[in-house]
């Protein structure tokens, strides 16, 4: 168990280093001089040279990479050129919006997907199964940011019961801030719910055919008890896998949904950094997002070791 854990952790560190190197290289080798991008083409050569020195652009590539990486590891992500404040602080501030948004979206998608998936599987080929299938096909096909626009049309401009966008901040009280996150979370969570519903249905159907479910029924358990006590817990393993993979899409969705609802989150920060050519903020936010995706997948991997004892052997199954 410990050997497997150590090997996975080693893999995690290598992947994180590789991703950071990839991001740094992409930002570095692409045509365009960050100093010139920031100051514009009309800047004098002296000003450009001074900014390059200040940004450390005159140093060799590897030195710059190690400097950036060392900074990132110690929490010093550099200073934003447009805001003039440390990037770490900016990210921390924006996380107060993005983290609750992502958690709420996940809660909505899990809260919809598991009951619907189990319902569809337990009544295979019924009208309920057909309707759930229709829901999941439709929600996979719609872009989350479009769902956001439709929600604004219905709940903000037509009914006027929800804010159309913006975020009052947690200082304004829990309810106003939470209310501002509800529609964005639905927009972000709905497409995820479609995927999860399908996976849950398939996984529960697979497990329902297993011998232990039959044994549970033979012991006298009601179909409902056999379903919820024996089938569903075992079916959750593939659901957790997909949940791990969905984080990539959750982040991509957050960038879009935060823009639709004008939420000052991390995705909007990345977008604004792009518009303002704030390279250092872009680089840091992308690294942060990617590290988050990798860590979440790692967490799912580790969760398996606890769920499925067969995987604890060296080499797995």
């Amino acid at each position, binding site marked *: 168990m410990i050997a497997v854990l150590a090997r996975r952790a080693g893999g995690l560190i290598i992947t994180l280093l590789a991703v950071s190197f990839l991001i740094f290289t992409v930002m570095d080798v692409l045509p365009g001089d960050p100093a010139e991008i920031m100051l514009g083409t009309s800047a004098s050569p002296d000003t450009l040279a001074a900014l390059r020195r200040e940004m450390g652009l005159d140093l060799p590539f590897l030195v710059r990479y190690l400097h950036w990486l060392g900074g990132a590891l110690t929490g010093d992500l550099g200073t934003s050129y447009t805001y003039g404040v440390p990037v770490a602080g900016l990210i921390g501030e924006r996380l107060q919006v993005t983290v609750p948004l992502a958690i709420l979206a996940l809660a909505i998608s899990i809260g919809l997907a598991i009951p619907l998936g189990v319902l569809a599987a337990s009544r295979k080929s019924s009208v309920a199964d057909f309707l759930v299938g229709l829901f999941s096909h439709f929600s996979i096909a719609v872009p989350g940011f479009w769902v956001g626009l439709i929600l604004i049309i219905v709940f903000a401009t037509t009914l006027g019961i929800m804010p159309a966008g913006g975020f009052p901040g947690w200082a304004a009280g829990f309810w106003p801030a939470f209310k501002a996150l509800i529609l964005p979370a639905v927009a972000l969570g709905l497409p995820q719910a479609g995927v999860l519903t*399908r996976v849950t249905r398939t996984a529960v159907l697979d497990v329902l055919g297993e011998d232990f479910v039959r044994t549970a029924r033979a012991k006298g358990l009601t179909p409902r008890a056999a379903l919820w006590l024996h089938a569903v817990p075992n079916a959750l393993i593939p659901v957790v896998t997909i949940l791990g993979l969905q984080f990539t899409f959750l982040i991509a969705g957050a960038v879009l949904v935060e823009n639709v609802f004008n939420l000052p989150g991390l995705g909007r920060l990345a977008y604004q950094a792009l518009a303002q050519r704030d390279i250092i903020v872009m680089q840091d936010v992308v690294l942060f997002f990617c590290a988050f995706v990798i860590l979440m997948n790692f967490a799912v991997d580790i969760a398996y070791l606890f769920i499925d004892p067969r995987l604890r052997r060296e080499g797995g199954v």
Partner: protein
Amino acid sequence: MSLFRSFCRRPQLWLGAFVTALLFAVALISLVWTPLSPSKMQIVHKLKGPFDHGLLGTDQFGRDVASMLMVGTWNSLSTALAAVIIGGVAGTAIGLFAAARQGFVEQLLMRVCDVIFAVPPILSAMMLGAFLGAGRFTAIIAIATFMVPVFARVVLGSARQIWARDYVTAAQSIGKRPLGITLVHILPNVAGQIIVQTAIQLGLAILTEAGLSFLGLGMAPPAPSWGRMLADSQTYLGLAPWLAILPGLSIALAVFGLNMLGDGLRDVIDPRAESG
């Protein structure tokens, strides 16, 4: 004949094929004909509702929405298709190579794929866009990059199983080279999986392209694209909701059709797989 019967038993395949064919037809027709020029502005007719002026109304500049949607179909589809073809060919090549070499090379290539997969396409497009500028090229490269690991993993998984078959061992034992075996025995046997993935990933690519265009990282204006039309509609949500509803429905219909087609094809090609 049995293939024909199996097609008849699968309505979702037919539905998917029909919607996808419709999508391609609209895209191709838009190259030669649209009801009006999608760039023609008629300010006097601005923000007219569907059937009020033209079939689907007009936008804030009085441009015909139906024509813009038609051209948008071509722009979105061609960008997504180019990205999937580039990513699919590169990913398939990597998957086939990894399966043929196995061992360290396979491990290394798959780790590289993991690293690429960790960067969401929206973010890679933003990074590329910061330097290359927004545009179709940036969108294609960003989406294609994300597709490479997807195809590589699917192809590797199937190809490894084929490499373990007796007829491949037989081919090896009579001295056939890995490249020959890959082309003659492996590729034809994984082709079905590649076709299924192409349909599913095309849907995903359309969604991503729409997202990129929405952020202004897709095709440059005035070329209409579904994502850009949605972005432009934001200012008029209360006044002209159809400007937001119609492009979104187009995206949803296109992705729905391609997903149905992909699922249907999977059922035909690999009946053991449960598409859910």
